C-alpha cells in the first residue's frame, strides 16, 4: 500500500495541490472531485477504493476534514507524500486568509465589512444546518438502527444545548453504544 515517488513527481504533486488550495472555497472537501481526477484518473497513483478509504478514515478520525488530503498523499508516497499534499493544500489559502483577516480587522466598523459579516451570517447558519442534516441522513436511511441513531443524535443535541459537558464524553458514549450494536 505504501509507495514512493521520485522527487520530481513529488514536487509536481505539491505544486498541483498548491493551485488547488486557492480553489478550495468552502473547505478542502470541495476540491475532492478534482483530486480524484488528478490522483486516480490522470496519474493512476491511487485506485478508487484507496481514494474512498482516505476520505472515510479522515471522517472517522478526530480533527479537521482536510486531513483526508495528507492521507491521500500518504497512500501515494508515504510520509513525504503526506507532507507534500498537506503543505500544498494549506500554504496559499492560509497566507491569503491571514492577509484578509488582518485587513478586515482594521476595518471592522466600515459599512462594507459590517455588511459582509451581517450578510454572510444567515448563509453560515444555513450551511451549518445543512451539514448536520447531511451527517444525520445515512442514519435516517438505515432502518436497522434508525431508532437508536436518531435517539443518540437527539440526546447529543439536548445535552449540548442544556449542559456544559465536553463533547469528548458524548463521543465516548456514542462509540460505546455503536460498539455494542445499539446504533
Amino acid at each position: 500500500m505504501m509507495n514512493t515517488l521520485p522527487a520530481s513527481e513529488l514536487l509536481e504533486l505539491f505544486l498541483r495541490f498548491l493551485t488547488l488550495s486557492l480553489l478550495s472555497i468552502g473547505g478542502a472537501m470541495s476540491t475532492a472531485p478534482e483530486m480524484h481526477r488528478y490522483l486516480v484518473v490522470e496519474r493512476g497513483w491511487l485506485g478508487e477504493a484507496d481514494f474512498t478509504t482516505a476520505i472515510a478514515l479522515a471522517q472517522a478520525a478526530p480533527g479537521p476534514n482536510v486531513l483526508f488530503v495528507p492521507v491521500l498523499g500518504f497512500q501515494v508516497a508515504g510520509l513525504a507524500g503526506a507532507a507534500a499534499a498537506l503543505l500544498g493544500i494549506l500554504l496559499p489559502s492560509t497566507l491569503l486568509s491571514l492577509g484578509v483577516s488582518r485587513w478586515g480587522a482594521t476595518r471592522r466598523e466600515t459599512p462594507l465589512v459590517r455588511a459582509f459579516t451581517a450578510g454572510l451570517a444567515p448563509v453560515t447558519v444555513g450551511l451549518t444546518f445543512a451539514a448536520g442534516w447531511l451527517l444525520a441522513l445515512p442514519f435516517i436511511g438505515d432502518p436497522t438502527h434508525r431508532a437508536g441513531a436518531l435517539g443518540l443524535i437527539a440526546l447529543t443535541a439536548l445535552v449540548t444545548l442544556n449542559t456544559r459537558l465536553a463533547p469528548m464524553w458524548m463521543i465516548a458514549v456514542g462509540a460505546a453504544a455503536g460498539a455494542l450494536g445499539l446504533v
Partner: protein
Amino acid sequence: MSAPAPASTSAAPGRPASPLALFIAFSLLALQGFGGVLAVAQRELVDRRGWLSRLEFVELYALAQLLPGPNVVNLSLMIGDRYFGLRGALAAISGMLLAPLLVVLALAASYQQLAQYPAVAGALRGMGAVAAGLILAMALKMLGTLRGNVLGPALCTALGLATLTAIAVFRVPLAWVVIGLGLSGWSLARWRIALRDAATARTKDVPHTTPPAPPAGRDPGTPG
C-alpha cells in the same frame, strides 16, 4: 437594536494566556472533533473557555468559510493571530493539525487490520451520530446570533433556508452556494445598512420639526 442579552453577544469574557495555551486548547478540541471540528470549536471556545462571543464566532466563521482553505484551519488562524499575531496563528494551526494528523496517519497505516472488527465499524457509526447531534445543536445556537442582524428576520430566514435547500436537497457545489448566496447577503446587507444610515441621518438633520413624543430609549443621532 432589539436589545438582546448583551453579555452573550458582544464582548467575550476571557482570552488565552499564551500561545502555548492556544496550542493546547486547539489540540484538545481538534482531538474531540469526530466528523468535523466546528461544533467542538464553538463549544470549547465560546461556551466553555469564553474566548469568543457567539456573535464573534459566527462572524469569524463566515469569513473563514468564504476564503479558500479548510474552514476550521482558517478559523484557528484568525483566532490565534488576533491574540498573539503570527506566533498565535502558528500555535493555533499546529494545535488544530498536529495531533489529529498523527492519529489519522496511524489509522491509515493500520486500517487493513482494524476494518475486520464489526465493533470498530459500530463504534465509528455511533461517533458519527454524535457528530451529527453536535452540529445540529450548534446550528440551533447560531440562530440566536441572527436576532440583531441588520437584514431583519424575513431576509435572514430566506437566505438561511435557500442555503439549506441548495446544499442539502439540490446538492449544489459549496463554492457556488457560498459565492452566490454570500454575495446576495452582502449586497442586501449593504442596502439595508445604507437605508438605516440614511434614516439616522434624516432624524439627525431635522430634529426640530414637530417632535411627536420624547425619544424612547437611546437617541441614535447623538454625536459622540
